[in-house]
C-alpha cells in the first residue's frame, strides 16, 4: 500500500515485532509464549512489511525462501530430537546443560533448539502463505 505514513511506520513496527517474537520465543518455556506464538508474531511482522513494500522487498530482506526457512526449522527440530540418541536416550528426550556462569544458571538444551525449529517453521510457512497470496495478483 503506497502511503507515506504506512510505509514510514511499517519497517519499525516490523522490527519491533520481530524483536517481540524472539522474546516470546525465548521465554516461552517459563511464561506464555514459545515457538508457535513467536513464529506467528514474526510472520505477522513479515506480512506487514510485505503489505507495505511488496513481496519482492520481503524476499530481499529475508535472503532465503520462506519455505526453505520452514524446512530448516523442521530439520532443526528433528535433529534436536535425534540429539538424545547420543545420550542413549529415546527420541526427543530433553538434554540439559546447566552451567553456572558468574552465578547465573544458563539453561542450554536441545529443547530450546527444538522450539527455535518450531519458530522457524511457523515463520517460514505462514510468511510463505501470506507472501504467495500477496503476490498472486
Amino acid at each position, binding site marked *: 500500500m503506497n502511503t507515506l505514513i504506512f510505509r514510514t511506520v511499517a519497517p519499525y513496527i516490523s522490527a519491533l515485532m520481530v524483536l517481540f517474537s524472539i522474546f516470546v520465543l525465548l521465554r516461552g518455556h*517459563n*511464561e*506464555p509464549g514459545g515457538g*508457535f506464538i513467536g513464529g506467528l508474531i514474526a510472520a505477522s511482522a513479515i506480512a506487514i512489511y510485505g503489505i507495505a513494500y511488496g513481496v519482492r522487498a520481503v524476499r530481499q530482506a529475508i535472503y532465503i525462501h520462506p519455505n526453505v526457512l520452514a524446512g530448516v526449522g523442521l530439520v532443526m527440530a528433528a535433529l534436536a530430537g535425534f540429539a538424545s540418541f547420543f545420550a542413549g536416550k529415546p527420541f526427543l528426550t530433553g538434554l540439559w546443560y546447566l552451567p553456572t556462569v558468574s552465578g547465573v544458571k544458563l539453561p542450554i538444551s536441545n529443547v530450546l533448539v527444538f522450539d527455535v525449529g518450531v519458530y522457524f517453521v*511457523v515463520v517460514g*510457512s505462514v510468511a510463505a*502463505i501470506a507472501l*504467495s*497470496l500477496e503476490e498472486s495478483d
Partner: protein
Amino acid sequence: MEIILAVVVGIFFAGGIYLMLSARLVRILLGVAIFGNAVNLLIFTGGRLVEAAPPVIGRAEGAAQVANPLPQALILTAIVISFSIFAFLLVLAFRAYQSLDTDDVDEMRLAEPPLNKPPLHY
C-alpha cells in the same frame, strides 16, 4: 458453567455445520473456521473448566486450582493444524473459483462429469 459452555459449543457447531452445508465456497470456508473453533472449545470444556490460575509454575502461588494444561497443549496443536488446513482450503477455494468459474460446489463437475453409460460390447 459447563452447561452454558456446552450450549455455546453446540451453537458453534450448529452454525459451522449450517454454513458448511451451503454449497457456496465462501460460506463453506466460514463454516470450517467456526467448526474449528467449536472443536477447540469442546476439547477445552471436556478437559473441565475452572476459573483458575494459568498453568505456569511460580505464577500461581496461593491459587486454589491450576488450570489443566494438557487440553491447552492439545488445543494449541489443533489450532495451528487447523489454521494450516484452513489456509490451504481457502487458497484452494480461491483457485477453484478462478479456474472452474463457479463458487457453487454442486456445479463443480469436472472431476465427476455425468457418468457415461459404460460400453456393452466386448
